[in-house]
């Protein structure tokens, strides 16, 4: 039994990937769409794993970075007429650039204060999209852009391949010197600084990596839906991405992928319950947390509370007294 468990743990990522590759053949069209969204969310959530799980900086503005990626891709294709691949590359680059800028407030703020800043950023982006109607289509949304690859299925395989490579990279980062620096940041910023970690640079790298993945996920989102609307990028969306990281255990790459797919599909699985759907959804999440499947301690729910700054909410990134 223990052996089986160990075996499963070792090959978990591979198993998940194989299941994902098999998915198009065994799912209905609608189910397939949900799986696609799950994979696309997982790419985003792996970025949040670096930012929130490894580095302990809580962001609730990630939907805005997703939107930046998706809209930049859409706009460059529809309004500028670029090739989809060039559009995708530029979209990811711009999102990374803007996301890195988000690290600037994190130089001075931590805990709930950083969260509020990121929420504010998210709202600014959403309102900009709503109001820059000539470019973004405003509340009507944006449509009419091409996909990266001609068929949905090929886009899906591209996405799974990307997810696999990203998963391995994120895992590696977690074990690398950079990962160690990010974790030391999460644990104790002053001590990290004393150890010679360049705290600002580490924060910027963390924000940049997570924004890059959010941008990529946004590009895929545009590919999946073929239509973009500001409603898909609300603060509530950001919160559900946070949920996916937390439920995934906050440290585990495979956990983050599985929880992204499960949480993406949960509302759909529960659809037969119609009006009581949301109630059951919340109950399932509560029971899950209650059962303590999410570890407490090392970077988990308790860790999240600490990240939020609940026990000692001074709000300053550095308290050198």
């Amino acid at each position, binding site marked *: 039994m223990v052996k089986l468990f160990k075996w499963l743990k070792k090959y978990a990522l591979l198993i998940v990937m194989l299941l994902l590759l098999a998915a198009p053949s065994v799912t209905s069209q609608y189910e397939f769409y949900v799986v696609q969204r799950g994979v696309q969310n997982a790419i985003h959530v792996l970025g949040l794993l670096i930012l929130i799980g490894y580095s302990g900086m809580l962001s609730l503005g990630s939907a805005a970075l997703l939107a930046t990626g998706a809209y930049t891709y859409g706009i460059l294709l529809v309004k500028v007429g670029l090739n989809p691949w060039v559009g995708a590359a530029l979209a990811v680059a711009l999102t990374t650039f803007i996301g890195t800028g988000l690290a600037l407030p994190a130089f001075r703020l931590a805990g709930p204060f950083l969260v509020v800043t990121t929420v504010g950023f998210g709202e600014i982006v959403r309102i900009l999209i709503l109001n820059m109607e000539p470019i973004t289509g405003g509340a009507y949304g944006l449509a009419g852009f091409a996909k990266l690859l001609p068929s949905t299925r090929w886009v899906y395989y591209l996405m799974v391949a990307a997810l696999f490579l990203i998963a391995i990279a994120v895992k590696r980062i977690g074990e690398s*010197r950079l990962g*160690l*620096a990010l*974790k*030391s940041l*999460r*644990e*104790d910023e*002053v*001590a*990290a*600084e*004393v*150890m*010679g*970690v*360049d705290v600002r640079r580490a924060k910027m790298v963390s924000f940049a990596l997570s924004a890059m993945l959010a941008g990529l996920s946004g590009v895929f989102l545009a590919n999946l839906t073929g239509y973009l609307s500001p409603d898909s990028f609300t603060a509530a969306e950001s919160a559900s991405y946070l949920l996916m990281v937390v439920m995934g255990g906050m440290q585990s790459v495979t956990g983050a992928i599985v929880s992204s797919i499960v949480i993406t599909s949960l509302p759909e699985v529960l659809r037969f319950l119609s009006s009581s759907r949301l109630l059951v959804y919340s109950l399932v999440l509560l029971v899950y947390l209650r059962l303590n499947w999410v570890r407490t*301690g*090392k*970077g988990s729910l308790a*860790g999240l509370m600490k990240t939020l700054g609940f026990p000692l909410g001074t709000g300053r990134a550095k308290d*050198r*007294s």
Partner: protein
Amino acid sequence: MLKINDLVVAYEVAPVLHSVSLEVQAGKIVTLLGANGAGKSTTLKAISGLIKPLSGSIEFCGEVISNKRPDEIVKMGLAHVPEGRLVFPGLTVTENLKIGAYTRKASRSEVKSDMQKAFDLFPRLAERCNQLAGTMSGGEQQMLSIARAMMSNPKLLMLDEPSLGLAPVIIDSIMDKIREINEAGTTVLLIEQNAELALSISHYAYVLSVGEVVLSGDSESIAEDKAVLEAYLGGESEGRTD
């Protein structure tokens, strides 16, 4: 090795250090004594670049470091064990030690052999290498924070009250380790509340009072001058020697 000249440091506006000058010679253990709030920790923070001084100069190995970032200073071979042993509670002992070697472009095998050295110095850490640092006892955490600082292979090790909150037996063993580290070639700058203890292991001493150096000299001669010492330390040393 370390030379501080006319250092002025302030947190908000009012200076905490008025004019501190001191010198640490290579190979020695130098202790910095002073009552609570005298500015000892502040001095160390200024040396390791955590706070920028208003004026004055700090020179390390002949190079001015007062305008350098903390990570650059660590790289030059200056390690700081902060007050209250700031280990990384959610990381294992091994991970904590690895971060100690963060600034060095050392190979895996080099880090491993240095980790072995750290384990030789503090065998207790070897037994607990996979334990989360936050779950260790105070004494073990102090050992870890010293071992972690040593992983950067420093020329100068600065220790801020390593005896804080520890039992006398543990304090004695920590002091022995500090002496051992020094004998192996690392210069030490030690902050202590327990003056008698610090003077017993150090070669040279400075006494800080309200942000100024008021007394300095060979540890032995300072130790003899009990009355003067007590006047500056506010009788602290009496109460804490036992």
